[in-house]
């Protein structure tokens, strides 16, 4: 009975509790729709108005949005994996095996986490290449390009720190080789290596440090820079419109980019 459900929904939306949370009010007018975006703490990062064309596949290939999607999958699966994982030697390896063979859906969650990580690295690079070849890094978007490079580094560091956590031979030697790269830094290389591992070799201290970096410090840094990255899209005049596109050219003549809602 759609009529009845609509009535119930309407009653909920008119209730005092609902109105205290969502202040934009009922209605589909442009003002209501703009307020719905503007007055939501998550959505207000984005432009209140976007050209319909820019929401199509061809405008962006959805590469940035898909990257966010894999990041959210990684947060959910990662938090679940944390419930069964002890970052200690040699328990870490046993926990990883338990997740594969003993825990219900553990194998699925672990594989989903691993594959999403691989896909995220791929998508970040694809997004970067797309932005580069379309010229979307140019002023006024040059700062957002820099934020994107920081996010690329955070993504690679997340991938690298996660690699040690299974505590198997592959993990051990990959981190031994990778952390030895830091020794090549002039003057302070050995100190950086020592601080990174919390010792002279890949050991229990290194596992714990990489765990904290992987599960807390780097994800928080990523969230912070993702927020800035999205907010800057709005501040820099919305999604990038390629100048050679005739349809776009006609549309963008109506509103100069600087005069769009910010």
């Amino acid at each position: 009975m759609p009529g009845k459900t609509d009535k119930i929904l309407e009653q909920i939306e008119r209730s005092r509790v609902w109105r205290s949370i969502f202040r934009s009010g009922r209605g589909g007018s442009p003002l209501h729709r703009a307020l719905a975006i503007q007055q939501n703490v998550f959505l207000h990062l984005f432009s209140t108005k976007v050209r319909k064309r820019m929401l199509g596949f061809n405008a962006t290939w959805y590469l940035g949005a898909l990257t966010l999607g894999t990041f959210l999958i990684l947060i959910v699966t990662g938090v679940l994996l944390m419930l069964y994982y002890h970052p200690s030697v040699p328990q870490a390896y046993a926990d990883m095996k338990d997740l594969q063979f003993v825990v219900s859906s553990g194998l699925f969650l672990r594989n989903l986490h691993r594959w999403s990580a691989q896909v995220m690295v791929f998508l970040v690079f694809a997004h970067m290449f797309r932005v580069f070849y379309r010229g979307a890094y140019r002023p006024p978007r040059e700062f957002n390009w820099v934020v994107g490079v920081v996010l690329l580094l955070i993504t690679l560091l997340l991938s690298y720190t996660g690699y040690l956590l299974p505590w198997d031979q592959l993990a051990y030697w990959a981190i031994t080789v990778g952390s030895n790269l830091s020794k090549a830094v002039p003057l302070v290389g050995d100190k950086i290596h020592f601080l990174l591992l919390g010792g002279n070799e890949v050991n229990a201290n290194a596992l714990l440090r990489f765990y904290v970096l992987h599960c807390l410090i780097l994800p928080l840094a990523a969230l912070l820079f993702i927020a800035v990255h999205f907010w800057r899209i709005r501040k820099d005049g919305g999604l990038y419109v390629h100048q050679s596109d005739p349809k776009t050219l006609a549309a963008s003549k109506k509103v100069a980019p600087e005069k769009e809602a910010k």
Partner: protein
Amino acid sequence: MPDEKKHETSPPAGELNRRAFFAKIGLGSLGIAAAGTAGFAYQFLSPNVLYEPSPIVNMGKPERFAVDSVTMDSDSAIYVVHTAEGFFALSEICTHLGCMTVWNEELGIIKCPCHGSQFTQDGVVIAGPAPKPLPWLKTWVSDEGDLMVDRSTTIHPMQFLRV
């Protein structure tokens, strides 16, 4: 709010007014606090006690190593080489990126499986990306007559230990 401009008097050249003085004091103390925090963070992040294996290893009686032999001990990551000139110990850890090298008996060379570096039994690089020779480690004979190796102390090459 009172007009701040009115109270501000430009100081004579080379002198500070009250506002600039307090701004300097504030920024200066913030700088000192930031430097202290950086020092504190560095000290906190450097462990003072390490639960790592001792760098000094006991390799047993020297007699167990035949003349003209290279013995690989993967647990302690060292080679004990016994030549006609005497004993020496060589680090097994590749100087490129820290992989464990392997002694190849047939070819008589040391090879790294990771990136293909090759060394002679004296540790000299003959191929691959390794930037430095494998270091010679300090060796001595203990009071009990055991061959001892200190993995944390390197010595100049060609210093043989005669027993």
